[in-house]
């Protein structure tokens, strides 16, 4: 009966701006959330990829150049590969072509040296997700198959990556916290100001016998509705922005090569978590606005006799 049409507050022109303001703030918060999630996802993805791999180094014979030593090297490599194939917990083992390892070392050793230096043979090993690998026994059997072979599990790199992941996560959280705090403040201010316009109506309703909860309901519904509209608009704009950024970044990457932030942005993929964040934000905006409206009305009412 006295349900939806309420006080017809929707006809009130002064609250028109609330959806706009909320759209802007939800937009900012959504961008921050997607950015934070992406950065964290990027780092943890890297983390996981590294954690799922090993590099095995087979030392070269010291005298390079002569064919005998080359053949000895190849033999040792094959022995290692055979051993790896039958080791449980290993999904794949692939020798890195000599050109690739040379390219890896070139910045450090210089092109001359790389060509003349006896390089170790590198084998890239992907671990199986299903089965754990017994590293110690593998190391032992490798030493038997090809003495001097070492097993690098990227421990140092992992530590660095984890430190980076931590700082990215912390920075992301700080940014989201700041934007959310700002958004909450702005919503509180906006709702309270919007209600300031209705001070007289609140007083009249009170004086003609409307219970507090009746008055609060009118305003909280109205405000919640406005906030929901604004929030949804904001998140839709955020989604559009992210998609547009990805497009631009993909183009940039094509031009500059896989460098820095452009790659990061290009790697943004809208996953379940992002969808949840983008849905959660307008809901949060609506809830916060509704509660603020309720609290503000109740506060005004508490001042009346």
């Amino acid at each position, binding site marked *: *009966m006295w349900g939806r049409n309420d*006080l*017809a507050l929707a*006809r009130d022109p002064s609250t028109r701006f609330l959806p706009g303001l909320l759209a802007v703030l939800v937009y900012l918060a959504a961008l921050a959330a997607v950015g934070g999630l992406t950065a964290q996802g990027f780092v943890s993805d890297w983390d996981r990829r590294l954690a799922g791999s090993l590099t095995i180094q087979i030392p070269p014979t010291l005298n390079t150049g002569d064919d005998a030593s080359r053949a000895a090297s190849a033999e040792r490599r094959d022995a290692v590969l055979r051993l790896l194939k039958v080791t449980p917990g290993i999904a794949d083992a692939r020798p890195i072509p000599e050109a690739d390892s040379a390219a890896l070392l070139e910045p450090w050793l210089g092109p001359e040296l790389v060509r003349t230096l006896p390089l170790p043979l590198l084998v890239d090993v992907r671990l199986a997700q299903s089965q754990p690998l017994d590293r110690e026994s593998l190391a032992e059997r490798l030493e038997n198959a090809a003495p001097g072979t070492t097993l690098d599990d990227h421990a140092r790199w992992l530590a660095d990556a984890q430190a980076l992941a931590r700082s990215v996560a912390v920075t992301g959280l700080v940014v989201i916290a700041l934007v959310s705090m700002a958004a909450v403040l702005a919503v509180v201010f906006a709702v309270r100001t919007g209600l300031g316009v209705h001070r007289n*109506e609140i007083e*009249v309703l009170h*004086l*003609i*016998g409307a219970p507090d909860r009746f008055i609060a309901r009118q305003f909280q519904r109205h405000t919640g509705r406005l906030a929901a509209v604004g929030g949804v608009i904001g998140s839709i704009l955020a989604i559009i922005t992210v998609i547009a950024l990805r497009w631009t970044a993909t183009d940039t990457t094509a031009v500059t090569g896989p460098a820095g932030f452009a790659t990061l942005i290009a790697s943004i993929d809208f996953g379940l978590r992002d969808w949840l964040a983008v849905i959660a934000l307008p809901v949060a905006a609506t809830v916060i606005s509704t509660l603020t409206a309720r609290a503000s009305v109740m506060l005004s009412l508490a001042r009346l006799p």
Partner: protein
Amino acid sequence: MSFFRHGVRPRSGRAEKERGASSQVVRFENVFMRYDGGPVILRDVSFELEPGSFHFLTGGSGAGKSTLLRLMYLGARPVSGNIRLFDRDISGIRRAERPAMRRRVGVVFQDFRLIPHLSALDNVALPLRIAGTREALIREHVPELLAWVGLSGHLDALPATLSGGQQQRIAIARAVIGRPNLLLADEPTGNVDDRIAIRLLYLFEELNKMGTTVLIATHNESLVKRFDHPRLHLEGARLSRVQMPSAAAPARPGNAAARPA
């Protein structure tokens, strides 16, 4: 006004009138009133309004008429003294009970206080909606009452597009639509011509016949003279009963109900 007889309130006004012999609708005892830092507006005021009575309240501009009404609709608290409303000491009424008390009082505010974004119809329907009346009843009774006050052509008009007198009649309709036990009208005819003023007073009398206690603050001397009801007069922060110019005893039982201290 079939409206009042078949109106939206289930309980009968007469029933209240009959059991009202031993009780009062309003009773002031030694009430002092002043606003923060201002002068005393009511000094030691005592009086009572019996159920079914009809009074005018007169006094100069700024004498305190609106303030006296405000105390009765729980819009302000006295500095000292006791006020009883419907046989309850208002200082003892819990906050949660106050809306129900207020719904038994209809108020015509001096400045109308219409809700600017609600149509005439919705403004008048407000008290019914607050009380949870069925929409079908509202659709039936509100237009009837608005027609009676001469606004049948303006059901959907917003207050800003109505003339001063039209707004005032909406304020009156809103105050009487719920058939309150007590009607407080503050200068309800300041913006209408004498013909409409008389019609509005008939409306109040009709309501009064159904059992509503009526108190009308007014400056309109000719109206006070025309309608032969007892008059309470505020002057120098004191309330007194003014003797009628016509010596004839008033016809209605309620007319003798005011006994200023």
